[in-house]
């Protein structure tokens, strides 16, 4: 009753963007065997830091999620929202906040200095893992919390009536739940960390702490060795493809739904010891999340009076990239969702869905390199840096947008599909009078997510960058690299506020 060709078209474009660019890259790659010891080092480091980040994030998230699931306290909704916000935080801003605490001149090193200890060293493996845990522990907490809250309340009531203690509940009820939730959560974080670029760029580097993504960047940017970049791109894709294949087999819990701020009624956890334990974990999570952001705010406010003149231009460029990317993401996700939901041929709709989720495994730098190779013979890729950035971010936001929109659309069709069919609500009329009004929330969320992710993105733009036409994150990185920390702090604050603002505006617009 509505056209499916836009969805098919978008799916082909996204497929071309992720697989096609990989093809372009592979075509330029020298034959296998061209991997040097440095490259193997990068592969090892990528896997090591991704595994460590996933394991530590999940290990910390379990007690925090458990505490959130069984306690009610003032400010809990704010904390749960904050856990969701870490996902849209610009990476480079968070890195700046972490440096203010764990860096050489940070709070922690200063405190250690008072007791005569040497400052902590943040650059290298532990810095990369620390930043990844900062980003992904909240995500993991929300996913695991979802697992806890989706356990039927009757089960805990039954446990209470059978006289279970908290140990029995943990062994018989909570552990089986965690067994289904943890593998998916860990895999998602592994994939995110395996493709992470900005964190490695800012906190890694050197022969011992280079990820594959960073190695692609270096091969491309410093040596202009397209062959090497291409070969590493294939390696990167292989890592993510294997991880994604595993991910499709395990259950991946939801993290974006609402209602995560309720508490499960429990009868086995009202001892002072357990209460103290839970509040300690909640306090730890709050401080771990808020302190770096507080530092950005604190350092940024004075920095605002001393901003470099190019900030306005960079902000304007970032905002336009964010808006374009938000608009395209909504268009792409909605047309794909319509095709996924409506196509009678299940195999085709599965393929479209698969393509939509493919970009989880795709690396922005591989897409960027591929696009460079494709564009290079025809135009100056540097001039297209901003459109390419917007496009890559559309691809990166698609999986999350689809996860929000497809179930909502299925529900709308289930409730109103027959009514709409009986009233000849087809094509534009169905879109205008049924889909748009009923899908406002997921569409607004998707637009907000895409806008915020593009606003803070420091990936492809670093690859193609034109120093005269930087975006905010790139400018921030350049200021940090030049140790102009006060200006950097001011720019970071602006970027932080803009990212949160675009997300909030779109998400609110969705009602």
């Amino acid at each position, binding site marked *: *009753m509505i056209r499916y060709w836009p969805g098919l078209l978008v799916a082909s474009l996204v497929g071309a963007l992720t697989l096609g660019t990989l093809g372009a890259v592979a075509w330029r790659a020298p034959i296998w065997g061209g991997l040097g010891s440095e490259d193997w080092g990068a592969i090892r480091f990528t896997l090591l830091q991704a595994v460590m980040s996933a394991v530590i994030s999940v290990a910390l998230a379990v007690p925090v999620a458990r505490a959130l699931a069984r306690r009610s306290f003032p400010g809990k909704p704010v904390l749960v929202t904050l856990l969701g916000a870490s996902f849209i935080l610009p990476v480079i801003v968070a890195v700046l906040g972490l440096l203010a605490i764990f860096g050489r001149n940070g709070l922690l090193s200063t405190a250690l200095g008072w007791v005569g200890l040497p400052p902590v060293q943040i650059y290298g493996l532990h810095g990369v893992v620390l930043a990844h845990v900062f980003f992904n522990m909240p995500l993991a907490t929300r996913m695991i919390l979802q697992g806890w809250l989706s356990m039927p309340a009757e089960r805990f009531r039954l446990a209470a009536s059978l006289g279970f203690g908290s140990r029995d509940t943990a062994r018989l009820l909570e552990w089986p739940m965690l067994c289904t939730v943890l593998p998916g959560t860990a895999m998602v974080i592994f994939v995110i960390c395996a493709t992470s670029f900005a964190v490695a760029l800012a906190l890694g580097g050197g022969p011992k702490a280079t990820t594959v993504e960073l190695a692609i960047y270096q091969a491309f940017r410093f040596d202009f060795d397209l062959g090497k970049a291409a070969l590493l791109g294939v390696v990167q894709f292989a890592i993510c493809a294997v991880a994604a294949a595993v991910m499709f087999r395990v259950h991946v819990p939801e993290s974006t739904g609402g209602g995560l701020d309720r508490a499960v009624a429990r009868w086995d956890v009202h001892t002072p010891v357990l209460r103290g334990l839970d509040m300690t974990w909640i306090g730890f999570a709050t401080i771990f999340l808020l302190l770096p952001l507080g530092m950005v705010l604190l350092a940024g406010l004075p920095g605002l009076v001393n901003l470099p003149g190019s900030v306005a231009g960079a902000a304007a460029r970032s905002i336009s990239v964010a808006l374009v990317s938000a608009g395209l993401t909504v268009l792409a996700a909605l047309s794909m969702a319509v095709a996924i939901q409506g196509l009678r041929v299940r195999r085709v709709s599965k393929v479209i869905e698969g393509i939509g989720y493919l970009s989880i495994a795709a690396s922005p730098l591989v897409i960027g390199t591929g696009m460079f190779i494709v564009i290079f013979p025809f135009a100056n890729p540097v001039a297209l840096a901003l459109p390419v950035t917007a496009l890559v971010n559309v691809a990166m936001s698609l999986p999350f947008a689809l996860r929000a929109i497809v179930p909502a659309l299925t529900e709308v069709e289930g*409730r*109103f599909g*027959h*009514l709409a*069919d*009986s*009233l*000849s*609500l*087809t094509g*534009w*009329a*169905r879109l*205008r*009078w*049924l889909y748009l*009004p*009923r899908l406002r929330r997921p569409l607004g969320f998707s637009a907000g997510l895409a806008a915020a992710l593009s606003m803070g993105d420091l990936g492809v733009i670093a690859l193609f960058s034109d120093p005269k036409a930087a975006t905010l994150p790139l400018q921030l990185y350049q200021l940090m690299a030049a140790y102009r920390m006060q200006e950097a702090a001011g720019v970071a604050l602006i970027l932080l506020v803009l990212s949160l603002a675009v997300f909030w505006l779109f998400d609110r617009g969705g009602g």
Partner: protein
Amino acid sequence: MLILDGLKLEQDGFSISADFGVDAGNKVAIIGPSGAGKSTLLNGIAGFLEPAAGRVLWKGADLGGTTPGDRPMSMIFQDNNLFPHLSVYQNVAIGVQPSLRLSGAETDLVRQALDRVELGGMAERKPAQLSGGQQSRVALARVLARARPLLLLDEPFAALGPALRVGMLDLVAELVEMTGATLLMVTHDPGDAQRIADQTVFVDAGVANGPVNTTQLLSDPPAGMRDYLGV
């Protein structure tokens, strides 16, 4: 007239067949045990389900291949008959013009239909601001405004209390008499059938038996019907 010509419908591994006609202007109830396929039959006539065999004909024309919206019928479902995000006026108007761009004459038509169900003063409200009975009347106003010759009801007004439901059925009967439309109504309540249907189709064991006089059927039920009624 409506003719079900050797019609066979299949859904989820179960099938129902029907081979009978309904004269234009008749009011027909479709009753039978739950799970017998009453709604499946209605969905087949409405075009939500392609027949596995046979045809659905209206005035001699095969309806096969036409979409539900293009068929000469309106339908009222068990629930979700209104779009909650549209106003009462829009909910009726969208049945006349899916684009909601109505001509002056069409607007008048919608207003008259709303007046007829005594909701003229509530045109700008959203469904959530109406009572259950008022919501059902909005759906009926849309049926009126669409003025299609066939009306299909699938266990309608199930969410209403008994008195309200009976009142609504009487209103349906009244509107159908007024417009001369043909009515097919699925119900599990023989009382409903007796109240407004001249004829009744009894569905049992995968077969929809042709319509017979409702009073006769209920006073002298065949074997399957006796089990269903528990007499």
